[in-house]
């Protein structure tokens, strides 16, 4: 699904050059659930942003769906994003001015999906996330767990091949956190590839493979040989 070869990322200001990623080689296969762990500032989010096509690497190669895309333009990346990627953030990032329904509908609007099909797909995913009864509420009227379920609904409504989650349970209490992780896990079982950044070992347990990052380098990978599938 995706492969990075000697990926590097440097941030340069007038005086300081900070290296965020050093020669990262990561390979994620179709259907995998990968957790990226590491202390604050180790480059987890930077890596996720590059994988999510929100950022460009300074050097190295990045293959996504067999294509080398590290030199893609903003517009090309935007197109790939909306067709193949879904995002879940720690702070949900729902649009406050839109209702639950309208938030979930938004990616389909950008994909120019027809009105009828949009309605059907949104309803379906809201049911699946058990949030349909809140469809006309605004984000501020929901609990954190509910907001994250809406965010996940929005991330998967376009049926992305790859779901990226940046500390999805970071703002939730443990009960709601567990709920969200179970949702992600079941999405993975249904075939969605997931890459998740997390601090929480409990969350990481849901993944097939844990990649440990330190000072911008992959220092170890733990593969759980579980016969889940």
């Amino acid at each position, binding site marked *: 699904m995706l492969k990075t070869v000697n990926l590097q990322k440097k941030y340069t200001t007038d005086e300081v050059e900070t290296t965020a990623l050093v020669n990262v080689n990561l390979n994620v296969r179709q259907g995998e659930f990968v957790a990226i762990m590491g202390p604050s500032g180790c480059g987890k989010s930077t890596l996720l*942003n590059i994988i*999510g096509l*929100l*950022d460009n690497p300074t050097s190295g190669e990045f293959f996504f769906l067999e294509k080398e895309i590290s030199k893609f333009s*903003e*517009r090309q990346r*935007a*197109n790939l*994003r*909306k*067709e193949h990627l879904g*995002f879940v*953030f720690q*702070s949900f*990032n*729902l*649009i*406050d*001015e*839109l209702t639950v329904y*309208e938030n979930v*509908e*938004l*990616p389909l*609007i*950008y*994909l120019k999906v027809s009105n009828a099909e949009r309605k059907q797909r949104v309803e379906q995913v809201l049911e699946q996330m058990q949030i349909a009864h809140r469809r006309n509420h605004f984000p501020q009227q929901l609990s954190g767990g509910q907001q994250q379920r809406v965010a996940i609904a*929005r991330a998967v409504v376009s049926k992305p091949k790859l779901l990226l989650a940046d500390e999805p349970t970071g703002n939730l209490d443990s009960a709601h956190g567990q709920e969200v992780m179970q949702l992600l896990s079941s999405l993975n079982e249904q075939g969605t590839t997931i890459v998740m950044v997390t601090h929480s070992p409990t969350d990481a347990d849901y993944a097939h493979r844990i990649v440990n990052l330190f000072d911008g380098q992959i220092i170890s990978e733990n593969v759980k040989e579980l016969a889940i599938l």
Partner: protein
Amino acid sequence: MFKNYFLVAVRTLRRNLGYTMLNVIGLALGITCSLLLFLVIRHELSYDTFHSKADRIYRINVDKITANGPEDNAGTPFPMLATIKASLPELSPATHLYNAEGGTFTIVSNNDRVPAKKFREEKNVLFVEPAFFDLFDFPTNGVNAKQALKDVNTVLLTQTIADRFFPGENPVGKVLRMDNVVNLKVTGVIPDAPENTDLPYVMLIDYESSKKINTFMNDTWNSTNSNQQVYFAMAPEASVKQAEDRLNQITSKYRRISPGEQERYTFQPITQVHFDERYGNFTGRTISKTTLWALGLIGMFLVLVASINFVNLATAQALRRAKEVGMRKVLGASKPQLMTQFLCETGLITLVALLLSVVFAELLLPFLNQLLELQISFSILRDAQMLLFLLVVLVAVTFFAGFYPALVISGFQPISALKSKVATARVAGLSLRRTLVVVQFTICQVLIICTIIVHNQMEYFRSASLGFDQEAIVNIPVPAGKAGDLMALRSQLESHSAVKATSFAIAPPSANIDMNSSFQYDDFSVNRNFSVNLKLADENYLKTFGIPLLAGRMYEKSDTMQEFVVNETFLEKVGVKDPQEAVGKKLLVNGGQTEGKIVGVVKDYHLSSLRNEIPPVVMSTMTQVYFYLNAKIEQKNAKAALAHLQNVWQTAYPDDVFYYEFFDDSLARFYEEEQRQAHLFKVFSFIAIVIGCLGLYGLVSFMVAQRTKEVGVRKVLGASSASIVGLFSADFVKLVLIAFVIAGPISYYFMDKWLQDFTYRIDIGYWVFLAAGALTLFIALTTVSVQALRAAFSNPVRALKTE
């Protein structure tokens, strides 16, 4: 997609209601002004454009250069029309018309026992030939106007006059007596003259009848009267220049020109008549294209100032939208899509402002009409030009105000946007916002400086000494040629204690009546290349108007020209230094027909508005041409005095209608147009300042919100409230000063040019600029302080908790 944009826009705007209101009200104010100015400009540009031949109708003017300077006017000698018809066939149809200005109308009744009803019309009594209707397309409502004025002694009444003279009756067939001289049969009623014509009329009378009214009319080439004008249509393929040349060849054979003088007859397109003050027109009102440009520019500036508010507020507020933008980008929105979204939002605000401004304009139009003495109206849905104008404003404002904020906001990097890491300074486009604020301040200051200068010049007009008394003097017209009747009753006129002095004269000292004459001074051997202004008045004139003598005495009572009094300028022009020296010298005037002695010299006084220089004046007596009784009365007994004057007047003229005007009112009319401009300047600069303040207020409130934490820290560290206010103010003081440096020279340049139109004018003192700068500074600081104080007085603990 657009539904989604719309939803978000409406909800965002509702959430930030304060911000939305600032924007909408500011924009609405700006657009309202531009809309009103659009209406005014369109109205002014529409004068006489409704005639089907408008593009080829011309008026004959004369450009004359005399030693006293240019004397341009639109009067033509009587034989002009016949000459054109005989020699210039391409000028067809051609017609002359005469404006009697006013007249007294008596309804001739068959019943002697019923007292005759009398009316006084002050202006726009127009005498026209049947060809008038071939040339112009005035509304006649089906009346065959050409036929109706075919015969002599006929009149067409406008609806308003018909209703006034003959309420509830059909006036057709009735007879009116004008000025007790000529009977006119009403042959029809036509609609009122359109507002937008420079040939306004309250009634149209057959041209032949004017010969009995216009006692000055003679059929020679050497008498002109600016109320006697010629209009014609030029054949489509004919050359204006060639026709002008041929006409001047012909006229030069007949016209007698004083040595040193030059004149040329020129053709003025009817569509230009409204804009050229040199020749004037029958409305008594011209407006220069420059003024129209200035008004248009002000309209644009007001919209610009309001749009700048929008840009400033929107970019300052951009941070609040960062998360939304970030998320939309993550979901695959492209930059053009986001720009479209934000432009739509601006469009929505502009649309709301636009609708609001249409309502405002509708509400304010009556006041504007009153201010400008116009009758402009509009009905938006039936007015294609107006809709187009609004559409242009909508698109222009949306793009101008929305483009930059949209560009900035849609350019956010998604990751930083989501993490609210977009740097304040970058988002805010701080230098751009500063520049825009400078532009705003500059516009405001230019307007303030212009307003002060225009106001001062108006005050100068009001207060400048004209060389004569103007207070508590009434001007009462007397019927032409009949001044003697009332002069016989002079002792009766002055018998009332509230009547201080009376004088009969051709006109009060400053009036638009000029009689020019060539002259010979002293030994008659020197040919002077300038003419003198003949001021004909009785022996009480100087006393009544308080004009001082410099030498000699006032002339004696007489009905004809016997003795002369001249003014200082006259002496200067003939090269006499000592006024005493002129006393006793011989003078020949009136085309060499009248000889007499100079008996006195008066101090210079103004003969017309302060736009013009004082000409050389020769005063003398001539009862035949006295048109006015001027009476100096006691202000506090004005009512009694007027009643007494009317009483005596009516004894002398039982068949005429008494009316009067206070002298200072008629003097004020000289500057009506400038007064209107002054009012407009005041209103619009005030609005510009209000809009500017709205923007500033919004801008500072965002700055304060963004720097809440900084203010908290500073306060914890011991900063005083004053220093916090200073923190926010310092920046704006700098901007005001920069704007001041720009605004000063710009406004000086334009106002200096404007003042050049007046021979007598104020000096532009440096204090005007200082005052304008100080005023702007004061307004800006007040606006800033209101917000800054709120930050300064806030509890630092709460401020620090906002993170």
